Protein backbone atom coordinates (compact mmCIF):
# COMPACT_ATOMS: atom_id res chain seq x y z
CA UNK A 1 0.00 0.00 0.00
CA UNK A 2 2.80 2.43 0.96
CA UNK A 3 4.66 1.64 -2.26
CA UNK A 4 1.54 2.39 -4.30
CA UNK A 5 1.13 5.68 -2.41
CA UNK A 6 4.74 6.62 -3.09
CA UNK A 7 4.24 5.91 -6.79
CA UNK A 8 0.95 7.86 -6.92
CA UNK A 9 2.52 10.82 -5.10
CA UNK A 10 5.55 10.81 -7.40
CA UNK A 11 3.34 10.62 -10.51
CA UNK A 12 1.04 13.39 -9.27
CA UNK A 13 3.81 15.84 -8.44
CA UNK A 14 5.79 14.96 -11.56
CA UNK A 15 2.70 15.59 -13.67
CA UNK A 16 2.06 18.93 -11.94
CA UNK A 17 5.70 19.90 -12.40
CA UNK A 18 5.64 18.93 -16.06
CA UNK A 19 2.42 20.82 -16.66
CA UNK A 20 3.71 23.87 -14.79
CA UNK A 21 6.60 24.02 -17.24
CA UNK A 22 4.97 22.90 -20.49
CA UNK A 23 1.19 23.49 -20.29
CA UNK A 24 1.48 26.87 -21.99
CA UNK A 25 3.48 25.41 -24.91
CA UNK A 26 0.94 22.60 -25.28
CA UNK A 27 -1.90 25.14 -25.25
CA UNK A 28 -0.17 27.43 -27.75
CA UNK A 29 0.55 24.56 -30.12
CA UNK A 30 -3.20 23.96 -30.44
CA UNK A 31 -3.88 27.57 -31.46
CA UNK A 32 -3.73 28.97 -35.02
CA UNK A 33 -0.57 30.95 -35.66
CA UNK A 34 -1.38 34.25 -37.34
CA UNK A 35 0.40 37.25 -38.74
CA UNK A 36 -1.17 40.64 -38.27
CA UNK A 37 -0.72 43.78 -40.30
CA UNK A 38 -2.48 47.09 -40.87
CA UNK A 39 -4.90 46.97 -43.83
CA UNK A 40 -3.51 48.06 -47.16
CA UNK A 41 -4.61 51.31 -48.71
CA UNK A 42 -4.99 51.89 -52.42
CA UNK A 43 -5.98 54.88 -54.51
CA UNK A 44 -9.57 54.70 -55.63
CA UNK A 45 -11.39 57.16 -57.89
CA UNK A 46 -13.56 59.52 -55.98
CA UNK A 47 -15.51 62.72 -56.48
CA UNK A 48 -14.92 65.93 -54.57
CA UNK A 49 -17.83 68.38 -54.47
CA UNK A 50 -16.81 71.99 -53.94
CA UNK A 51 -18.87 74.61 -52.13
CA UNK A 52 -20.14 76.05 -55.33
CA UNK A 53 -21.31 72.61 -56.49
CA UNK A 54 -18.47 71.93 -58.85
CA UNK A 55 -17.62 68.22 -59.04
CA UNK A 56 -13.97 67.35 -59.33
CA UNK A 57 -12.91 63.80 -60.04
CA UNK A 58 -9.77 62.56 -58.36
CA UNK A 59 -8.36 59.68 -56.33
CA UNK A 60 -8.19 59.09 -52.59
CA UNK A 61 -6.40 56.49 -50.52
CA UNK A 62 -8.91 54.00 -49.16
CA UNK A 63 -8.60 50.77 -47.24
CA UNK A 64 -8.56 47.90 -49.73
CA UNK A 65 -8.93 44.15 -49.51
CA UNK A 66 -8.37 41.45 -52.10
CA UNK A 67 -10.98 39.05 -53.48
CA UNK A 68 -9.17 36.20 -51.77
CA UNK A 69 -9.47 37.92 -48.40
CA UNK A 70 -13.18 38.49 -48.97
CA UNK A 71 -13.71 34.85 -49.84
CA UNK A 72 -11.77 33.54 -46.84
CA UNK A 73 -13.32 36.01 -44.47
CA UNK A 74 -11.72 39.08 -42.95
CA UNK A 75 -10.57 38.65 -39.40
CA UNK A 76 -9.34 41.41 -37.14
CA UNK A 77 -7.06 40.99 -34.14
CA UNK A 78 -8.11 42.16 -30.70
CA UNK A 79 -6.88 41.61 -27.17
CA UNK A 80 -8.84 40.85 -24.04
CA UNK A 81 -8.21 39.47 -20.59
CA UNK A 82 -8.79 35.76 -20.10
CA UNK A 83 -8.00 33.86 -16.91
CA UNK A 84 -5.82 36.65 -15.55
CA UNK A 85 -3.80 37.21 -18.74
CA UNK A 86 -4.01 39.44 -21.81
CA UNK A 87 -4.48 37.22 -24.85
CA UNK A 88 -4.98 37.63 -28.60
CA UNK A 89 -8.31 36.79 -30.24
CA UNK A 90 -9.83 37.35 -33.66
CA UNK A 91 -13.25 38.56 -34.68
CA UNK A 92 -14.84 38.53 -38.11
CA UNK A 93 -15.14 41.97 -39.67
CA UNK A 94 -18.34 42.55 -41.65
CA UNK A 95 -17.01 44.76 -44.42
CA UNK A 96 -19.04 46.64 -47.02
CA UNK A 97 -17.11 46.96 -50.23
CA UNK A 98 -17.36 49.51 -52.98
CA UNK A 99 -15.41 49.97 -56.19
CA UNK A 100 -12.96 47.41 -57.48
CA UNK A 101 -9.63 48.30 -59.02
CA UNK A 102 -6.69 46.12 -59.97
CA UNK A 103 -8.01 43.20 -57.98
CA UNK A 104 -8.56 45.26 -54.82
CA UNK A 105 -11.96 46.17 -53.40
CA UNK A 106 -12.50 49.48 -51.66
CA UNK A 107 -13.76 49.07 -48.09
CA UNK A 108 -16.55 51.48 -47.32
CA UNK A 109 -17.25 50.32 -43.76
CA UNK A 110 -16.33 47.55 -41.34
CA UNK A 111 -12.59 48.21 -41.18
CA UNK A 112 -10.52 51.09 -39.91
CA UNK A 113 -6.87 51.92 -40.39
CA UNK A 114 -6.29 51.12 -36.69
CA UNK A 115 -7.38 47.50 -37.13
CA UNK A 116 -4.93 44.68 -37.60
CA UNK A 117 -5.88 42.23 -40.34
CA UNK A 118 -4.95 38.66 -39.58
CA UNK A 119 -3.59 36.01 -41.93
CA UNK A 120 -3.37 32.33 -41.04
CA UNK A 121 -2.98 29.04 -42.81
CA UNK A 122 -5.50 27.48 -40.42
CA UNK A 123 -9.22 28.00 -40.14
CA UNK A 124 -10.13 30.91 -37.90
CA UNK A 125 -13.29 31.19 -35.80
CA UNK A 126 -15.20 34.13 -34.45
CA UNK A 127 -13.71 35.10 -31.05
CA UNK A 128 -11.17 32.30 -31.34
CA UNK A 129 -7.87 32.59 -29.53
CA UNK A 130 -4.76 32.87 -31.69
CA UNK A 131 -1.00 33.13 -31.33
CA UNK A 132 0.89 35.88 -33.06
CA UNK A 133 3.77 34.49 -35.08
CA UNK A 134 7.02 36.26 -34.29
Amino acid at each position, binding site marked *: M*KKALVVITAVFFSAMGFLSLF*AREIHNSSLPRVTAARPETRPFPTEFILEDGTVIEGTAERIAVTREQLEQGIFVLYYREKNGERRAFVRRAEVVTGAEKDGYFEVISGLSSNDFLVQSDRLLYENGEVILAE
Partner: protein
Amino acid sequence: MKKISAVLLALIGAVFLLPVILTVIMSFRGEKGFSLQGYWDLLFDCFVFYPMFWNSIIYSAVITAVQLIVIIPCAFGFSQAKFKGKNGLFVFYIVLMMMPLQVTILPNYIGLRDMGLIDNPLGIILPLIFSPFGVVVMHQYMKSTDSSVIEAARLETNSIVRIMLTSVVPQLRVCISAVALFVFADCWNMVEQPMLFLKTDSLKTLSVFISNAQNYEGNLLFPSAVIFIIPVLLLYLFYGESLEKGLTLGELS
Protein backbone atom coordinates in the same frame (compact mmCIF):
# COMPACT_ATOMS: atom_id res chain seq x y z
CA MET B 1 -25.53 -2.69 19.67
CA LYS B 2 -22.23 -2.91 17.81
CA LYS B 3 -24.07 -3.36 14.50
CA ILE B 4 -26.26 -0.30 15.17
CA SER B 5 -23.14 1.76 15.99
CA ALA B 6 -21.42 0.51 12.84
CA VAL B 7 -24.45 1.42 10.68
CA LEU B 8 -24.76 4.83 12.35
CA LEU B 9 -21.06 5.57 11.87
CA ALA B 10 -21.28 4.43 8.25
CA LEU B 11 -24.20 6.81 7.66
CA ILE B 12 -22.34 9.70 9.31
CA GLY B 13 -19.27 8.83 7.23
CA ALA B 14 -21.40 8.82 4.08
CA VAL B 15 -22.77 12.28 4.96
CA PHE B 16 -19.22 13.59 5.27
CA LEU B 17 -18.06 11.84 2.10
CA LEU B 18 -21.01 12.94 -0.03
CA PRO B 19 -19.73 16.48 -0.83
CA VAL B 20 -16.34 15.05 -1.84
CA ILE B 21 -17.93 12.41 -4.08
CA LEU B 22 -20.23 15.01 -5.65
CA THR B 23 -17.25 17.32 -6.27
CA VAL B 24 -15.41 14.55 -8.09
CA ILE B 25 -18.50 13.67 -10.17
CA MET B 26 -19.21 17.30 -11.06
CA SER B 27 -15.58 17.81 -12.12
CA PHE B 28 -16.11 15.26 -14.90
CA ARG B 29 -19.46 16.66 -15.98
CA GLY B 30 -19.82 18.63 -19.19
CA GLU B 31 -22.77 19.94 -21.15
CA LYS B 32 -23.46 16.51 -22.63
CA GLY B 33 -22.51 14.17 -19.81
CA PHE B 34 -19.01 12.87 -19.09
CA SER B 35 -16.34 15.33 -20.19
CA LEU B 36 -12.72 16.19 -19.43
CA GLN B 37 -13.24 19.75 -20.70
CA GLY B 38 -13.09 21.14 -17.17
CA TYR B 39 -9.68 19.60 -16.56
CA TRP B 40 -8.48 20.77 -20.01
CA ASP B 41 -9.66 24.31 -19.28
CA LEU B 42 -7.95 24.27 -15.91
CA LEU B 43 -4.66 22.58 -16.78
CA PHE B 44 -4.11 23.91 -20.32
CA ASP B 45 -5.94 27.23 -20.38
CA CYS B 46 -5.55 28.76 -16.92
CA PHE B 47 -1.90 29.30 -16.19
CA VAL B 48 -2.38 31.32 -13.00
CA PHE B 49 -3.39 27.99 -11.42
CA TYR B 50 0.17 26.58 -11.34
CA PRO B 51 1.95 29.31 -9.31
CA MET B 52 -0.93 29.21 -6.84
CA PHE B 53 -0.68 25.41 -6.53
CA TRP B 54 3.05 25.51 -5.85
CA ASN B 55 2.64 28.46 -3.48
CA SER B 56 0.23 26.35 -1.42
CA ILE B 57 2.72 23.48 -1.33
CA ILE B 58 5.66 25.72 -0.41
CA TYR B 59 3.88 27.79 2.24
CA SER B 60 2.36 24.69 3.89
CA ALA B 61 5.63 22.73 3.85
CA VAL B 62 7.73 25.62 5.16
CA ILE B 63 5.25 26.54 7.89
CA THR B 64 4.94 22.89 8.97
CA ALA B 65 8.72 22.43 9.14
CA VAL B 66 9.35 25.68 11.00
CA GLN B 67 6.48 25.06 13.40
CA LEU B 68 7.86 21.65 14.32
CA ILE B 69 11.29 23.18 14.95
CA VAL B 70 9.69 25.74 17.27
CA ILE B 71 7.07 23.70 19.10
CA ILE B 72 9.16 20.61 19.94
CA PRO B 73 11.62 22.54 22.14
CA CYS B 74 8.74 24.58 23.50
CA ALA B 75 6.79 21.47 24.54
CA PHE B 76 9.99 19.89 25.89
CA GLY B 77 10.62 22.98 27.98
CA PHE B 78 7.10 22.83 29.38
CA SER B 79 7.48 19.17 30.30
CA GLN B 80 11.00 19.32 31.81
CA ALA B 81 11.62 22.84 33.01
CA LYS B 82 10.37 24.12 36.34
CA PHE B 83 9.75 27.88 36.39
CA LYS B 84 7.39 30.34 37.98
CA GLY B 85 4.19 30.92 36.03
CA LYS B 86 4.51 27.69 34.02
CA ASN B 87 0.92 26.63 34.62
CA GLY B 88 -0.39 30.13 33.93
CA LEU B 89 1.56 30.28 30.67
CA PHE B 90 0.17 26.90 29.65
CA VAL B 91 -3.40 28.09 30.34
CA PHE B 92 -2.60 31.19 28.25
CA TYR B 93 -1.54 28.91 25.38
CA ILE B 94 -4.85 27.04 25.63
CA VAL B 95 -6.73 30.37 25.52
CA LEU B 96 -4.69 31.36 22.44
CA MET B 97 -5.55 28.04 20.84
CA MET B 98 -9.27 28.70 21.26
CA MET B 99 -9.09 32.25 19.91
CA PRO B 100 -10.71 32.44 16.45
CA LEU B 101 -8.74 33.74 13.49
CA GLN B 102 -11.13 36.66 12.97
CA VAL B 103 -10.03 38.16 16.31
CA THR B 104 -6.33 38.27 15.43
CA ILE B 105 -6.39 38.92 11.72
CA LEU B 106 -6.69 42.71 11.92
CA PRO B 107 -3.83 43.15 14.46
CA ASN B 108 -1.82 40.77 12.26
CA TYR B 109 -2.52 42.89 9.18
CA ILE B 110 -1.54 46.12 10.97
CA GLY B 111 1.67 44.55 12.27
CA LEU B 112 2.63 43.15 8.87
CA ARG B 113 1.79 46.43 7.14
CA ASP B 114 4.03 48.34 9.55
CA MET B 115 6.84 45.82 8.94
CA GLY B 116 6.40 46.12 5.17
CA LEU B 117 5.44 42.47 4.80
CA ILE B 118 2.14 42.91 2.99
CA ASP B 119 2.31 41.22 -0.44
CA ASN B 120 5.31 39.21 0.76
CA PRO B 121 5.36 35.42 1.36
CA LEU B 122 6.96 36.05 4.76
CA GLY B 123 3.75 37.83 5.70
CA ILE B 124 2.02 34.44 5.46
CA ILE B 125 4.79 32.31 6.97
CA LEU B 126 5.99 34.38 9.95
CA PRO B 127 2.67 34.74 11.83
CA LEU B 128 2.20 30.97 11.66
CA ILE B 129 5.64 29.95 12.92
CA PHE B 130 4.24 29.33 16.39
CA SER B 131 1.15 27.25 17.10
CA PRO B 132 -0.23 26.82 20.63
CA PHE B 133 -2.15 23.77 19.39
CA GLY B 134 1.07 21.93 18.55
CA VAL B 135 2.63 22.80 21.90
CA VAL B 136 -0.42 21.61 23.84
CA VAL B 137 -0.70 18.30 21.95
CA MET B 138 3.01 17.61 22.11
CA HIS B 139 3.20 18.51 25.80
CA GLN B 140 0.38 16.06 26.57
CA TYR B 141 2.21 13.36 24.65
CA MET B 142 5.54 14.12 26.32
CA LYS B 143 3.96 13.43 29.71
CA SER B 144 3.55 9.80 28.62
CA THR B 145 7.16 9.38 27.48
CA ASP B 146 9.67 7.41 29.48
CA SER B 147 11.51 9.90 31.73
CA SER B 148 14.19 7.33 32.62
CA VAL B 149 15.54 7.74 29.08
CA ILE B 150 15.97 11.45 29.70
CA GLU B 151 17.64 10.77 33.06
CA ALA B 152 20.04 8.34 31.39
CA ALA B 153 20.81 10.91 28.71
CA ARG B 154 21.54 13.56 31.38
CA LEU B 155 24.29 11.28 32.74
CA GLU B 156 25.99 11.31 29.36
CA THR B 157 25.62 14.94 28.37
CA ASN B 158 24.68 18.32 29.78
CA SER B 159 23.44 19.65 26.45
CA ILE B 160 19.65 20.06 26.59
CA VAL B 161 19.48 20.17 22.79
CA ARG B 162 21.32 16.87 22.50
CA ILE B 163 19.10 15.26 25.14
CA MET B 164 16.04 16.47 23.29
CA LEU B 165 17.23 15.33 19.87
CA THR B 166 18.63 11.93 20.85
CA SER B 167 16.28 10.84 23.64
CA VAL B 168 12.98 12.68 23.33
CA VAL B 169 12.38 13.23 19.60
CA PRO B 170 12.71 9.52 18.67
CA GLN B 171 9.99 8.72 21.19
CA LEU B 172 7.79 11.46 19.72
CA ARG B 173 7.86 10.31 16.10
CA VAL B 174 4.22 9.33 16.09
CA CYS B 175 3.09 12.56 17.74
CA ILE B 176 5.28 14.65 15.47
CA SER B 177 3.69 13.00 12.41
CA ALA B 178 0.22 13.66 13.80
CA VAL B 179 0.94 17.31 14.58
CA ALA B 180 2.68 17.80 11.22
CA LEU B 181 -0.37 16.41 9.44
CA PHE B 182 -2.72 18.75 11.30
CA VAL B 183 -0.51 21.76 10.72
CA PHE B 184 -0.05 21.00 7.02
CA ALA B 185 -3.79 20.53 6.51
CA ASP B 186 -4.52 23.74 8.40
CA CYS B 187 -2.04 25.73 6.32
CA TRP B 188 -3.20 24.11 3.09
CA ASN B 189 -6.78 25.16 3.78
CA MET B 190 -6.06 28.73 4.87
CA VAL B 191 -7.75 31.31 2.70
CA GLU B 192 -8.18 34.47 4.76
CA GLN B 193 -4.50 35.21 5.25
CA PRO B 194 -3.47 34.88 1.57
CA MET B 195 -6.54 36.84 0.53
CA LEU B 196 -5.82 39.74 2.88
CA PHE B 197 -2.04 39.77 3.15
CA LEU B 198 -1.15 39.10 -0.50
CA LYS B 199 -2.04 41.37 -3.41
CA THR B 200 -0.14 39.82 -6.32
CA ASP B 201 -1.91 36.84 -7.92
CA SER B 202 1.35 34.95 -8.43
CA LEU B 203 1.92 34.86 -4.65
CA LYS B 204 -1.56 33.69 -3.69
CA THR B 205 -2.57 30.13 -2.88
CA LEU B 206 -4.80 27.49 -4.42
CA SER B 207 -7.49 28.09 -1.80
CA VAL B 208 -7.78 31.70 -3.02
CA PHE B 209 -7.95 30.46 -6.63
CA ILE B 210 -10.88 28.19 -5.74
CA SER B 211 -12.67 30.99 -3.91
CA ASN B 212 -12.32 33.17 -7.04
CA ALA B 213 -12.93 30.38 -9.58
CA GLN B 214 -16.09 32.01 -10.90
CA ASN B 215 -13.94 34.92 -12.19
CA TYR B 216 -12.18 32.60 -14.63
CA GLU B 217 -13.55 31.24 -17.89
CA GLY B 218 -14.54 27.60 -18.07
CA ASN B 219 -15.74 25.05 -15.55
CA LEU B 220 -12.70 25.38 -13.25
CA LEU B 221 -14.23 25.15 -9.80
CA PHE B 222 -14.74 21.41 -9.46
CA PRO B 223 -11.55 20.22 -11.21
CA SER B 224 -9.50 22.64 -9.09
CA ALA B 225 -11.27 21.41 -5.96
CA VAL B 226 -10.38 17.79 -6.84
CA ILE B 227 -6.73 18.71 -7.36
CA PHE B 228 -6.87 20.67 -4.09
CA ILE B 229 -7.94 17.55 -2.20
CA ILE B 230 -5.19 15.28 -3.56
CA PRO B 231 -2.04 16.41 -1.65
CA VAL B 232 -3.72 16.39 1.77
CA LEU B 233 -5.39 13.08 0.97
CA LEU B 234 -2.03 11.54 0.02
CA LEU B 235 -0.45 12.92 3.19
CA TYR B 236 -3.26 11.50 5.29
CA LEU B 237 -2.96 8.09 3.64
CA PHE B 238 0.76 8.12 4.40
CA TYR B 239 0.47 9.26 8.01
CA GLY B 240 -3.10 8.37 8.98
CA GLU B 241 -1.99 5.61 11.35
CA SER B 242 0.41 8.01 13.09
CA LEU B 243 -2.41 10.53 13.43
CA GLU B 244 -4.62 7.96 15.14
CA LYS B 245 -1.85 6.79 17.47
CA GLY B 246 -0.66 10.31 18.17
CA LEU B 247 -4.07 11.51 19.25
CA THR B 248 -5.14 8.44 21.24
CA LEU B 249 -1.87 7.97 23.11
CA GLY B 250 -1.92 11.60 24.10
CA GLU B 251 -5.40 11.07 25.51
CA LEU B 252 -4.43 7.95 27.46
CA SER B 253 -1.68 9.83 29.27
